[in-house]
């Protein structure tokens, strides 16, 4: 299947879709790049001109930007940490032979089917609400003051909500990995004198590294662009405490109607995503081989 002519034919046949995808990607990117060097506000559309790197400089000089950058990375890192660790533990738990296993698994998967703004609303109003929320009721039950989650710990709250949404995905992938581990390997390790922890550390975890890598890579792609949950709950506040890069771009584009700055923010986001991807692939790419 790799004679000279078959390879040529393969390339020719793939070409149209590759070209289409390239255009699909290049055109918006080029336009964003173009606008990022322009002064272009929708409130004064006739006053447009080249401004060089001013739009970028505005971001770099804005203290909000560095906070947003930090928040974006904190959101990605925090959610990854929580979903991978909890996902592994839950997968280990629901892999045990117990009654009602099928039902339990459906329960665990359920949050994934809830749309992000809905999930965020549920959390905001049913759990974290200082008067009506479940957490407030529990706190009051213990005679404590309700915690103002979204006001005092906005970033933590959003990390919590997003983790809740993504936990099922991580659990599902890690569970299938766990189920593909041959029981004879575990039995062999047991005979070799490995304690339950040692079996996890030396047999189960290495077996799951590839699945964990896949979870991290896929989630990172989606988590970098998280927007709906923030929009529904904190709106980036209080102040800019829970503003991430995508939310900051949204504020420039829709609230300030400044297309130039929003485009510059978009380019910065693309660069950030590439930097993250580079380090992820350097750190984890090896796990995907063979």
């Amino acid at each position, binding site marked *: 299947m790799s004679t000279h002519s078959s390879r040529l034919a393969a390339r020719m046949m793939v070409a149209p879709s590759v070209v289409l995808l390239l255009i699909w990607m290049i055109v918006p990117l080029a336009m964003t790049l173009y606008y990022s060097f322009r002064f272009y506000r929708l409130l004064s559309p006739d006053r447009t001109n080249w401004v060089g790197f001013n739009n970028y400089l505005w971001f770099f000089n804005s203290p909000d930007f560095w906070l947003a950058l930090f928040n974006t990375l904190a959101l990605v890192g925090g959610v990854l940490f929580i979903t991978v660790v909890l996902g592994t533990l839950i997968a280990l738990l629901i892999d045990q032979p117990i009654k009602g296993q099928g039902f339990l698994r459906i329960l665990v998967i359920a949050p994934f089917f809830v749309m992000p703004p809905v999930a965020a609303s549920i959390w905001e109003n049913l759990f974290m609400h200082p008067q009506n929320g479940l957490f407030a009721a529990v706190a009051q039950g213990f005679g404590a003051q309700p915690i103002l989650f979204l006001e005092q710990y906005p970033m933590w709250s959003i990390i919590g909500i997003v983790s809740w949404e993504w936990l099922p995905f991580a659990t599902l992938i890690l569970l299938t990995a766990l189920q593909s581990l041959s029981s004879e390997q575990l039995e062999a390790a047991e*005979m070799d004198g490995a304690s339950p922890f040692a079996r996890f550390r030396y047999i189960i975890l290495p077996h799951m590294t590839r699945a964990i890598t896949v979870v991290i890579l896929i989630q990172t792609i989606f988590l970098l662009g998280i927007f709906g949950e923030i929009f529904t709950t904190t709106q980036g506040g209080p102040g800019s405490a829970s503003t991430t890069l995508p939310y900051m771009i949204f504020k420039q584009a829709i609230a300030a109607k400044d297309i130039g700055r929003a485009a510059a923010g978009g380019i910065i986001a693309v660069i950030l995503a590439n930097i993250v991807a580079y380090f992820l692939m350097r750190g984890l790419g090896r796990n995907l081989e063979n």
Partner: protein
Amino acid sequence: MGKIQLTKVRKSFGEVDVIPGIDLTIENGEFVVFVGPSGCGKSTLLRLIAGLEDTTSGVIDIDGKDATNLPPAKRGLAMVFQSYALYPHMTVRKNIGFPLKMAGMDPAEQDKRVERAAKVLNLSNYLDRRPGQLSGGQRQRVAIGRAIVREPAAFLFDEPLSNLDAALRVGMRQEISELHQSLKTTMIYVTHDQVEAMTMADKIVVLNAGHIEQVGAPLELYNFPRNLFVAGFIGSPKMNLIEGAEAAKHNAHTIGIRPEHITVGDGPWEGVVGLSEHLGSDSFLKVAVEGLGTMTVRAPGEVHARHGDRIRLAPAGKIHRFDTNGLAI
């Protein structure tokens, strides 16, 4: 150092009594082979001894100590699995050294023992490879290496050679036998293979539906099968079993005669050759004998008999006699 005693050991999975109750003593240093038809409980019995399954009732003594409720690691036994169960992400060195590492042995000593085991098993050149980069026979040796380094009281093998091709099997069979001779450790070996059982065992345990049918040395089972099941199971091709008038002549309900104990030429029985297989060293003939049914005959060398030929047969060896309950008389 490796005496294993089972007393009334029973195992059921839910409703099903897989092993209804077994008494068995395995002496120190013995090579014991479990044989029996598929599904008769060989693996289950081995796993009970290993501690990978809990007994439903009964007692397992290892070295005179009650081990019934000990976890596998505490029993001092090592097991070699049919699928080898090597750890795929570890090198051969780490695989073999894993039990030592788990025992908390110091790394220098670990290395020494791994090197020694690798030398015995001809694995020295492969220590830094992963299991995925080894052939079936080499993987098998790694699995054995992982068992040896622990210096266990006994080795348990569950059909260790069944994934290998015929030639490699013969080689590994001899290697395991030699290993037993040099280590003098108790070995319990499960197999389907007649030849493995006959050539390797000090003692064969024939199992059927969770029962022990007979225990004995290979030739003892061959020469003096205690009942019809053992008579039919041990020996290849199978013993010819004849009922009716011919058996009554010998004062038995059933008589058995092995294919190699029938000669072709002159004799009291006459039949038509159905199938003939010529192996060079032997010829196997299926002969339809009037009044007796189909008989299998094993004749040495080349026999010029073909499909449809009429030939005469004579018994020339021991005739085994069985009563109505299938027990040997």
